[in-house]
C-alpha cells in the first residue's frame, strides 16, 4: 500500500465487511470470528470509503454534511489507523 495522501481512495479491506447493526445501534466491521463496533464519526467516515472517493472528497462531503471545517486531519488520522489494522486499503 502506498503512503496515504488526500488523493488516496480508500475502500474496505479484503475479508472485512461493513454493515449497520440495529442490535448494536452502530456501524460494525465484521471479520473472521470478530466484530469492531465503530463510533459515530468513524462510521460516518468509513461508510464513505468506497474506493471511488478520495480522502479529499470524503473530507469535503463530511464538512458539508455536518457544516464543519478543518476535518482533514481527523479523517487522515482515522484512515491511517484503519489502514494499519487492514480495515481499509488503498492503491
Amino acid at each position, binding site marked *: 500500500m502506498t503512503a496515504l495522501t488526500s488523493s488516496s481512495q480508500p475502500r474496505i479491506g479484503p*475479508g472485512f465487511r461493513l454493515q449497520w447493526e440495529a442490535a448494536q445501534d452502530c456501524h*460494525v466491521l*465484521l*471479520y*473472521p*470470528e470478530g*466484530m469492531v463496533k465503530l463510533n459515530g464519526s468513524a462510521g460516518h467516515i468509513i461508510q464513505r470509503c468506497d474506493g471511488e472517493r478520495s480522502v479529499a472528497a470524503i473530507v469535503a462531503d463530511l464538512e458539508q454534511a455536518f457544516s464543519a471545517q478543518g476535518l482533514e486531519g481527523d479523517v487522515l488520522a482515522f484512515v491511517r489507523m484503519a489502514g494499519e489494522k*487492514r480495515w481499509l486499503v488503498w492503491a
Partner: protein
Amino acid sequence: MSSTAIGPPLWLLAELTYRCPLHCVFCYNPVDFAQTQNELSTDDWLRVLREGRELGAVQCGLSGGEPLLRDDLEIIVAEARRLGYYTNLLTSGVGLTPERAAALKAAGLDHVQLSFQDSTREMNDFLSHTKTFELKNRVAATIKGQGWPMVMNVVIHRMNIDHVDRIIEMAAEMGAEYLELANTQYYSWAYLNRDQLLPTREQLRRAEASTALWRERLGERMRIFFVAPDYHDGRPKKCVNGWGSMFLNVTPDGTALPCHTAKMLPGLAFPNVREHSLREIWFESEGFNRYRGTGWMKEPCVSCDQREVDLGGCRCQAYMLAQDPAAADPVCVKSPLHHRVAEAVARAEAGAPALTEHPLVFRDPANSRRLAPAG
C-alpha cells in the same frame, strides 16, 4: 438477572454434524458423540439462523465434526449470508474440492478456517489418524484462490509444540491472514489423552519465544494468536468470554449450549431448538442462566477481586477436576484443588508415558461407543 442486562448472542456456532473423516486425539466433541443419531434438518437450521439473527447474532460459525459432510451446507451458507451474518466455515479441508469451494463462494461464504495438525506430514497424519497432509496443502491453495481470508488453526500440544517455528513459517507461506496456535484445552478426547498432550514449561517457553520472533518479522501480514495454556498459567480464563454472554452453540441434534462442552455438566437440562425458540433458550432457560454473571459463585471466587475478570473460570473444568461445576476452576492457584492441575503439569515435566504403556485414544465412532456410558 433481567433480560435487559443480557447482551445478544453475538456468536452462533452451528455444529452441523459429528461425522468427521478425521480422528483427532484432542477433539473437543463429546466422547459419546456416536450416540447422536438424528441431525437437525435443513429447515431446522434455517429457522435457527433466522432466530439467531433476530436476537442480534452477527457471526455464524459452521462447524462439526466436518461440516462439509452436510450436502445442504451451501443452502445453509446462502441463508446465513442473506440474513447478514459473517459466515465462517471451520473445516478440516477434507471434501473442499475446487467445485465445492466455488459453490460456497457463490453462496456467499465469507471466510474459511482450516485446521492443520502439524507442519510435518508424519505428525499431521498421525495425530488425525488419516493421510490428509497433502490434501490440506491443496485446500489452502483453493481457499486463497477463492479470495477468502484464511485462518489456519493448529492445536498445540507436547507432540507438535517443538515444530511451532516451522508451523508459523508454513502458515505464512500459504498466505494465511491469521494463525491460531491453540494450546490444547483438556476436555473430552483431549482429557482422555491429557498425559500425552501436556507440554513441558520449557517447550512452552520456546514456543512463545518463536511466536514473538515471528510476530516481529511478519507484522500485520499475518496475525498470530497464541491461546494461553491455562494449566501452566495458574490463571483461569473466562468460559467463552462469559457463560451466556455472547456465545450460543447448537449441537448436531439441536441441543443449545452456552459452550462447546457444557453438555457434560450434571444437574442441568439444556434446551433443544426443536422445542424452544432461541429467544426463550437465550434469556429464559435454566441451562443458560445457571452460571451467568457471578451470583452462583462460592468461595474462593465469591470474595475474589478477580471474579469479574475471569468469572471463576471454566465450569466444565471445575466439574472434571473438582467434581463440582460451581467450584473455582482448579487451574486457578486460589482453588483448594489446584494441586490436581499442578500434579498433571509435574507429570508432564517428568516425561510423558510411553505410547505403548498408555495408548492415545483416537476420536472415532468405535472408541466413542466403547467409552460412552451405557444408555
